[in-house]
């Protein structure tokens, strides 16, 4: 099937992420493509609208680096630690310069779903008697055509680029993931362009042996980037754990603009890419993030039918 889509992160971002784009790096706590976020910073993209349920440390870094003009989100924090300080600096007080567009988690998931399904809106039973539709006029009531009341609608979200990290893909971009699946599938189908970053490149036969495990078909994928540890400090089910120390350490760094700049200089601008980053983190730190033991899924039989 066609030619390989395997590319370096540099080339994938250079070709597919453009100034002014709406970019979604999705993955709910799991499989967050920090490596793509860093490359976007390194290439100096600007005026991006960044969409993500949980902006997390990666968008805090991207905002600190000046790539964003707006964030579309549903929960803005450093999970388990506190606030996102770089984002707070540009959203609190009279000099706020970063635009925020805010939903709930299900609202964001429903927005991607409407985008993926080419629907003009998606109805959900949420937002009743809250202030969210007051401050976000895109959350609108919609009456059931069956005369049984009103629910709320959210509009489709169609990113220019969606970037997801996964355990494995083949060279066509056929992608499989397990563990938490978040809304990567919906965000990818909703997007104009898709970059998949994987821990491991596998033969097409590995994918085709378990078609129910596929979350994204190569059909909608523009580039496959192979970068082990590309989701660090977030995690990859079965491969490595969340590096909680990183999330905790980010808090004091991000409170201090100078320290933040120094961190970006050292860990992003000062490195060529994820391979350098992995080397700099060091084998010992990485080894400590491996699962305590394997937990195999077991195999099921699809049968051959000739």
């Amino acid at each position, binding site marked *: 099937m066609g030619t390989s889509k395997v590319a370096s992160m540099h080339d994938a971002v250079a070709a597919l992420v453009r100034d002014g784009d709406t970019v979604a790096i999705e993955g709910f706590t799991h499989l967050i493509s920090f490596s793509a976020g860093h490359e976007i910073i390194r290439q100096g993209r600007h005026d991006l609208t960044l969409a993500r349920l949980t902006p997390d440390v990666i968008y805090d870094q991207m905002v600190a680096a000046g790539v964003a003009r707006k964030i579309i989100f549903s929960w803005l924090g450093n999970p388990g630690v506190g606030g996102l300080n770089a984002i707070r600096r540009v959203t609190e007080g009279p000099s706020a310069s970063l635009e925020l567009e805010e939903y709930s988690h299900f609202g964001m998931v429903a927005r991607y779903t409407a985008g993926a399904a080419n629907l003009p809106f998606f109805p959900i039973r949420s937002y009743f008697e809250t202030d969210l539709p007051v*401050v976000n006029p895109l959350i609108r009531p919609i009456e059931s055509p069956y005369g049984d009341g009103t629910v709320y609608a959210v509009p489709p979200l169609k990113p220019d680029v969606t970037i997801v990290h996964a355990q494995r893909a083949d060279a066509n971009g056929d992608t499989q993931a397990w563990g938490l699946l978040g809304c990567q599938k919906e965000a990818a189908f909703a997007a104009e362009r898709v970059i998949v970053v994987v821990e491991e490149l596998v033969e097409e036969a590995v994918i085709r042996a378990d078609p129910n495990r596929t979350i994204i078909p190569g059909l909608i994928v523009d580039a496959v980037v192979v970068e082990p540890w590309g989701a660090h400090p977030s995690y990859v089910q079965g491969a490595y754990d969340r590096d909680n120390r990183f999330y905790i350490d980010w808090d004091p760094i991000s409170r201090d603009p100078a320290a933040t700049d120094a961190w970006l200089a050292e860990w992003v601008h000062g490195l060529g890419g994820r391979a350098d980053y992995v080397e700099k983190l060091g084998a010992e730190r990485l080894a400590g993030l491996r699962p305590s033991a394997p937990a195999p899924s077991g195999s099921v039989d699809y049968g051959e039918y000739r």
Partner: protein
Amino acid sequence: MTDPAAFTKSEMMIAAAARELAGQRVCFVGVGLPNIAVNLAKRTVAPDLELVYEAGVFGARPARLPLSIGDPTIVSGATAAMSMFELFAFYLQGGLVDVGFLGAAQIDRFGNINTTVIGDYANPSTRLPGSGGACEIAINARQIFVIMRQSKRSFVGKIDFRTSPGNLGGAANAERIRREQGWLGRGPSVVVTDLGIYHFDDDGEMRLDSLHPGATLEAVRDTIGWEPRISPDLAVTPAPTGPELELMRVELDPGGTYIR
């Protein structure tokens, strides 16, 4: 080994919150304090409790306290891991969640919750995380449990932003609106703080039913933005037991993130 005579206010709060889950079946676990309270309940009063994580997990059996609302330990050994669409649409909105367990930055006497901003929305003095799933949990879970520390800044006469609806302007008002709008949720039923346990009375207002050991009614009144209703049968919360403390200190929160 663990001295039950010495415990922190946080330990009392978490133990009391966990005990409220006795007899419950399916609990949607919020980020932060709810996470440790629910995990403690699963190991004590409610071993059959089914844990639902908004990250897309049903029937989690975390081998350690999950570091956040998403963690590989909530997936390994779970009954089902699925897309967030499926979790929110079929489990939560579909009406399968008995208890939604939330934290809050601000709460009012009717259990309405703010986790969005302090101050004006467009120009906030503090930008809080926002709804996450809390807004739809409050509407669709059959009942809501809240765990949060008391202070004049958090227990307020009027919340700055309504992220998650509680009993709105009172029980009669809330019941009419829920019926008219077809909510599955019946609203908040418990608030557990570092000082005591509140349930909601017939007016839909918080009522202090139990005071934690060491806490006083003065301390309660000093940390609440309205004149609180106090049960005529005010109880004293039983102190955390040795096993509860042991579980919190050794297994769930050895780093002391929540229990200090």
